[in-house]
């Protein structure tokens, strides 16, 4: 390929990126703005900017650590402690497979779009809180405002060829946090493997399942040939309506399995739908990373 052509391809991709990036970023910022959670304290004394407590000076405390203004009000010496504010590494994985491009209605976004939005908004929130955020296999965890733009650019890439994605664990920092955003409709084994690898490294996090309402309701009837998004997988039925209950049972079984897996490795699991607003999902994700429930 000639360099000219290469440049042109690069240029057109860059333009496409430039078109898609700002709206996604703006939307993510707006979504993140709905959550005002304050500083990301560790609830213990440590190095940070915020005042934590005064304590009596012990043997071995450096003299310059003594807070003279406080000490002058009483006989003892006091040391002004600050709250420990340590940055954590959070690794996000957003399912890039074709199944995420599905949407069951014109009035709702594709699952992948919602997943990227959630991930980016979460990243905005975390970066604002001083954490380091990265994308599994795509971007190293870093902190700072510029990382947002980098993440947005990585997230806006083309979908992969495969029907279903496997969680990526590369680039995960030990004892950090991880978030997997996917529909988890594909084979369950890669998820199991990824979770066990994460558990080995002491990573905790959240599984966020994004589903389209159509996938929850199965509103089909009559003679239908179902195809996967790439067309590689198909299933034909005469009476789609009769499959509904069995499909829903399988879906519930899948969710139970995922929930069970998450519980085993100390992760959180929840399902969200593209038909509902993204705020609740974002709030849940943020809380899940806080470690509470």
């Amino acid at each position, binding site marked *: 390929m000639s360099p000219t052509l290469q440049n042109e391809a690069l240029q057109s991709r860059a333009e496409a990126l430039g078109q898609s990036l700002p709206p996604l970023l703006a939307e993510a910022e707006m979504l993140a703005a709905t959550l005002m959670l304050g500083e990301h304290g560790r609830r213990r004394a440590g190095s940070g900017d915020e005042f934590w407590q005064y304590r009596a000076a012990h043997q071995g405390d450096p003299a310059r650590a003594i807070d003279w203004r406080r000490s002058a009000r009483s006989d003892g010496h006091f040391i002004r402690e600050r709250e420990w504010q340590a940055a954590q590494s959070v690794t996000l994985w957003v399912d890039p497979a074709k199944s995420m491009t599905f949407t069951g209605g014109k009035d709702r976004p594709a699952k992948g779009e919602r997943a990227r939005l959630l991930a980016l908004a979460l990243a905005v929130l975390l970066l604002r809180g001083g954490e380091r955020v990265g994308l599994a296999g795509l971007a190293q965890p870093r902190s700072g405002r510029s990382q947002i733009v980098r993440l947005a650019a990585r997230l806006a890439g083309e979908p992969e060829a495969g029907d279903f994605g496997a969680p990526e664990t590369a680039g995960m920092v030990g004892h950090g946090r991880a978030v997997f955003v996917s529909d988890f*409709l594909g084979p369950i084994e890669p998820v199991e493997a990824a979770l066990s690898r994460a558990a080995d490294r002491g990573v905790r996090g959240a599984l966020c399942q994004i589903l389209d309402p159509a996938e929850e309701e199965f509103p089909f009837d*009559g*003679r239908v040939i*179902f*195809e*996967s*998004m790439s067309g590689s997988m198909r*299933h034909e039925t005469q*009476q789609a309506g*009769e499959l509904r209950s069995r499909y829903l049972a399988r879906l519930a079984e899948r969710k139970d399995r995922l929930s069970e897996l998450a519980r085993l490795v100390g992760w959180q699991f929840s399902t969200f739908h593209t038909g509902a607003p993204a705020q609740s999902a974002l709030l849940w994700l943020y809380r899940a990373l806080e470690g509470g429930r």
Partner: protein
Amino acid sequence: MFMIGPVGFLTPWILWGLAALPVLWFLLRAVPPAPIRRRFPGVALLLGLQDEDAETDRTPWWLLLLRMLAVAAAIIGFAGPVLNPEQKQAGTAPLLVVLDGGWAEARDWARRIERAGLVLDEAGRDGRTVAVIRLTDAPQEVSFRAADDWKGRLAVMEPSPWLPQDPGAWIDHFPAGEFDTLWLSDGLDHEGRAMLAGLFADKGQLTVLTGDGPVLALHPAGFAEGAVLLSASRLDAGGAADIEVTGRGPDPSGVERELARARISFAPGETRAEVKLDLPPELRNRVTRFEIAGLRSAGAVSLTDDSLKRRKVALITAGPQAEGLQLLSPLHYLRQALEPVADLIEAPVTTALPANPDAVILADVARLTASEEAALVEWVEKGGLLLRFAGPRLAASDVSRFEEDPLMPVRLREGGRALGGAMSWGDAKDLAPFPEGSPFFGLALPGDVQVAEQVLAQPDPDLAERTIAALDDGTPLVTRKFMGDGQVVLVHVTANAEWSTLPLSGLFVQMLERLAISTRPSLPGARELAGQIWVPEVMLNAWGEERDAGEVAGVAGEDLAIAMVAGPGPAHPPGLYAGADRRVALNVVSPETRLVAAEWPASARVEGLATPPEQSLMGWLLSAGLVVLLADILASLWLGGRLGGLRRGVAVLAVALVAGLAAPQAQAQVSGETPPAPPEAAQTTDSAPPDTPQPGDDFAIRSTSGVSLAYVKTGDAQIDETSEFGLVGLGDRLWERTSIEPEYPTGIDLEADELAFFPFLYWPVTADAPTPSDAAYAKLNQFLRTGGMILFDTRDANIAAFGGGTPEGQALQRIAAGLDIPALEPVPEDHVLTRTFYLLQSFPGRWAEGTIWVEAAPADAGQEEGVPFRNLNDGVTPVVIGGNDWAAAWATDENGVPLLPVGRGAAGEQQRELAWRFGINLIMHVLTGNYKSDQVHVPALLERLGQ
């Protein structure tokens, strides 16, 4: 033409296509609906699931049926189906067309002639000879001729205003040989008709065409108990039916118009019905004809004659009448004779004459004042009939003794004479036969009429010609004098039985009739008609239209009498006949006429006049096929799961449709299966122990658990909300400032809710407020009587003053009309409302200016020495009426923030505060009555007033 029932087919061979339907069935069955492709990520979860019913790859049977129906409709549609195709059948025999030609056919005569013309045309095309006869004509020889010969004559044929007299007489006038008959019948049975029909049926095919409208006949109007009795008959006793009968006649300006209208209702199964029509005599005497509205037929018209007219007769006697001497009263027998047939006026002359009587009877009146006499003379000369009876007073007076009194036909000799008494030689005298030329001529003399006393006429030269009745010794009994257009008649005996037995006999009544003072209640009999020539004045044609009789010759009374019974005929057509002194109506329908339906031989074909029009069904069937195809498209889409968004809408429609269809059935089933429940329910309600919860208990408990202010729901959501929040705001103020602690206000539906629980009702009046029902008024009045108060608020700032022209004011007047409201006055300065809690002199709401009205103080409310207030009425004023829109000023929302602005700035807030104070005063007044009028508080109040 190939026929199935009433449907014929133009191209029946196309129907063979129906045989191909089974083949189509198998072909279609093999082709299942095409699948739809869907992208669906959840397919991974579907893998391995099997269909439970593998048979559905064939088209379902109902879809097949739908398609079969569509194809069948198309095939049948193209075969050209026609509903009621015209059947033509040509005969060869001569054709006889028979018309009844009576009044009963007049209504649809044009259609009959048209139909007969069509038949003639057809016969002409077929080369048949034709004869047309009309049964009302005199029988004549029937000859069959070419159809064209008859067409001109048929066109000018008209129905007669009578029915066929004797159809049987035609029977000898038909030629020998076969012929077919078309009989356009009026549906009535005539004498000899059955025989004729039998003959026609023997001769060939008899086809009978009958009209499809009802045959109605109006009988002559009669009298019954002072009212006009109208009766009508109909031919077929079907279900209930109403007909309108109108009475027409000239109005005072001579223009003919409708004067009366009555509705005659036929009961189901009855052929005759009647109605009484009570008309004032003025109107009744004007009516010249009754007719069934909207029916053009002589049978629907009944001319009225003198028998319907009732004359006004003034009865005048001299002096006061002694009580208890009824039989001796000079007027008793006159009254008895005239009361059933005339309208009596019993009044002094000067009062009676302006009532324009037809006759004035003076019974033994001797003296008349000059003015009375002048008035009577003038009245007689204008055509009045003055009938005088003699008597003791007349005999003893000097009236007409030497000079003939203008109001006496003869001069009288002094004293009169008595016959047959104990002190006289002769016997009582009988009557002589009435001379020719006398109005009484022809009346039979009963043998028992005797005259014992009479006044005698002076033998003047013209006595003989003035005598119209005499005794057998030649002395005049009744004398008459013409005067101007009128006449004066003197009966030389008393009107009571004192002097003669004449008033006791039937002759007395007949003589009064002959004098045209009274009129007959019924049809004139042969005797009354005989001996005169009756000349037609008005004649009726078959459509009931009046025609001038012109120069038609008169009819002898005897013939007319027969026609009155048998009905009119060619010799004496229906109409109004005038005799010497009265007019007689010969109507088409007599009182006894009965309408009898004709019965036809079994072989006759009876058809209606109208033929059902041909109707092609092709378009309908093809449209039906198209509709079915559309349904098939929808069904196929549904089967393939492609209806998508449509599906929900269709499902909703279908459910609604099924529910709509099923609901009445379900109700029917319920009502059919369960016995009627209400009596049981009523019993249980009665026998229920008092402590079981009753419906409405909730409302009662809620309303009585505390003081509850109430407002009337107007139906306008915004006004109701303002009322509710207004009372909330007022309740809050009461709660804060007084010991009254009202509950949340209650909205009242006047028709449904009990009012007894509430002391106070706020009633915002809207312009379109409905007037309460009687039950609601009863509740409201009970509420007012038992101490409740209603605050009427027209919310219009009283811009037009109380009761004025605003729509709300008018609505208030309308509503308050049914209420038990005492006299009102604007609030006086010393009314207790001004000081029940706050001292107030103005009562602003959202508006500040309006006057408010309360129950007026009693007139004797006195002001005692040294007391600033009158001792006013004792109770609570039941109503307070104003237009200041108080609720709007009181209203606060749930946070206590005023809902609506009042006035402007601080002054507005001051006004709102005053409004609240008024409200507090009002509720205080409602709950404490005139407590604050009590003298005890006067010094304290005075002290505060002084500050």
